[in-house]
């Protein structure tokens, strides 16, 4: 543990003013077609995730969060844009890098932070930890700590909803490294064969832990894999929250009206190491590469876009920042005052009584 803290170092707080970042030209067009209240909500959610994750890194470095902790910093536009298209009765399954999707879905930040800290009040009673967040009433079905393990489940969730004649759709997030496991292929075939209302969102952040996609996949244009299953596909700039929102919205519409699945590749980048145990850059990528990618910070670009359109002012940004900081501080305070689980809690919930 000590070694991993040392390796990770401290996390720099990200400057989130637009400061010199140009707005995305495509994003301006989409922003003009989106209600300002929606734009502000998207920005707030991305900011919340960024601040939450920075705080999680801090608590990890202090030893208050143990184990393994995978941050979503850099990928916020994917989770926030995609989940903004859902209704309250829809479902989400995600990987072990799922704090962002959980927050975007509206899980309580305090209960998430408490779970990261292994507290009794955590969303999974402290038994799951960072990689096992779950909140069924909010349609958030994990948090799955084995690469691609959630992909078959999503087909089952969508199947059951269709069988029960409910109009929900299911979003299934996973990283680009997960497309190489057998279950991915088995599941996409099932989803297409059974015409399931499920949307697979492959977050291509370019690295499976420390190995770049070029060294693990024979095909780089990952959404092409949908062709093997006669499935609709899309590829989207995962650093542009509005582009993600638009592409996923089309897929959601396809799922609802035609009960048909879609595979979407969202090209993104994680600004942190794979987990808190490894540095931001190192053997597998250079500092220059990470800095270049940070110029496309999805939050900075979005702020620049919104400022250029007059949707938000720098004062509004400061106010939003304060608001999310308060939420994160409240989350930490909740976790800090929460109790550790009792030892005998070990034995509860192994089976449904």
């Amino acid at each position, binding site marked *: 543990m000590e070694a991993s803290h040392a390796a990770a170092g401290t996390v720099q707080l990200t400057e989130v003013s637009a400061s010199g970042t140009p707005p995305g030209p495509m994003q301006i067009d989409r922003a003009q077609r989106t209600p300002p209240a929606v734009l502000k909500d998207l920005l707030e959610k991305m900011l919340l995730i960024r601040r939450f994750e920075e705080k999680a890194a801090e608590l990890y470095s202090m030893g208050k969060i143990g184990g393994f902790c995978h941050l979503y910093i850099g990928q916020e536009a994917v989770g926030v844009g995609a989940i903004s298209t859902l209704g309250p009765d829809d479902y989400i399954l995600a990987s072990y890098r799922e704090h962002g999707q959980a927050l975007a879905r509206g899980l309580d930040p305090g209960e998430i932070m408490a779970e990261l800290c292994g507290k009794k009040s955590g969303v999974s009673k402290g038994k799951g930890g960072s990689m096992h967040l779950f909140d069924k009433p909010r349609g958030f079905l994990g948090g799955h700590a084995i690469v691609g393990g959630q*992909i*078959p489940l999503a087909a089952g969730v969508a199947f059951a909803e269709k*069988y029960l004649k409910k109009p929900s759709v299911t979003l299934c997030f996973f990283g680009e490294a997960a497309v190489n496991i057998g279950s991915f292929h088995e599941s996409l075939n099932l989803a297409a064969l059974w015409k399931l209302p499920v949307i697979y969102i492959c977050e291509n952040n370019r690295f499976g832990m420390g190995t770049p996609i070029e060294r693990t996949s024979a095909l780089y244009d990952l959404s092409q894999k949908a062709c093997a299953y006669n499935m609709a596909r899309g590829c989207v700039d995962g650093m542009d929250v509005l582009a993600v929102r638009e592409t996923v919205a089309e897929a959601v519409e396809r799922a609802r009206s035609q009960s048909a699945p879609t595979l979407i590749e969202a090209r993104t980048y994680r600004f942190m190491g794979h987990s808190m145990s490894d540095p931001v850059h190192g053997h597998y990528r250079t500092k220059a590469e990470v800095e270049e990618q940070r110029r496309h910070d999805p939050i900075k670009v979005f702020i620049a876009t919104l400022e250029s359109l007059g949707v938000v002012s720098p004062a509004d940004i400061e106010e939003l920042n304060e608001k999310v900081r308060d939420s994160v501080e409240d989350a930490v305070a909740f976790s800090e005052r929460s109790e550790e689980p009792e030892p005998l809690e070990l034995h509860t919930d192994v089976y449904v009584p």
Partner: protein
Amino acid sequence: MPVMTYLDAIRQGIWEEMERDPSVFLLGEDIGDYGGAFKVTAGMLKKFGAERVIDTPISESAIVGAAVGAALMGMRPVAEMQFMDFISCGFDQIVNMAAKIHYRWGAKVPLVIRGPSGAGVHGGPFHSQSNEMWFVHTPGLKVVVPATAYDAKGLIKAAIRDDNPVLYFEHKFLYRRIKDEVPEGDYTVPIGQARVAREGTDIAVITYGAMVWTALEAAEQLAKEGVSLEVVDLRSLLPYDEQAVLATVRKCNKVILLHEGTRTGGMAGELAALLAEKAFEDLDGPIVRITAPDTPVPFSPPLEEFFLPNAKKVAEAARKLAAY
């Protein structure tokens, strides 16, 4: 009371549960039109329709994973493995997903995975394994192994109604070879309860699955020689009936632990440890294990016969133990 085969009893149990509860559905390879490799699901497609009797691609991971997902949403899937050997392809979805969802989240995954296991039909290394112990070592799962037609029906119904993931190991050698009385209509056999298959006084033989019949055959032989074997059929391996195990050993004071699965890490070792801990003073002789050896299941009929425990081997061991 109607007499039926082990296979028909399983089939009837599933059939009745499908009629009783619309959230029960079946999925697996060739279970629809074809009726399953061993015909356990014959006729079900016609009766219940393609929405509830679903032929799948050969994709065990997706079959189990989709069943877990559907169970999360309140369905009660019954997934067939064409042979229990093939369950290895869906292993992650069983031991990581299904087994730990309730512990991680408090959510129910009522799910049954069933299929044929066991040797004796010259199926060779990938169609003959008794691989139940892979799962007995996984808290969160339940594992049942019926030996009789009565239990086959009662346990499949109990498994389908259970709110936990249950692995239901059928023994393919028994499918059409045994018949017994099965009541018409509804009954269940509680998971976790053993039964005394034959009362006796001198040596307890604790076993399960097809080996119950082997033990009974040996007991019949030994009775003629004046040695009385009590045969206990575990029926469930996880959880197993600790009280029944202790009771028979306290009664007979000598014990043979018998199974078709391989030796190291087998159920017999677990029971031997239990007896050493809790029945040490009750034992009047060494604990005897009769199991398959630590090898794959060979195809060649004479080799397979050598691999499997049989009544002769049990009888020989019982004679020795009786004389101890």
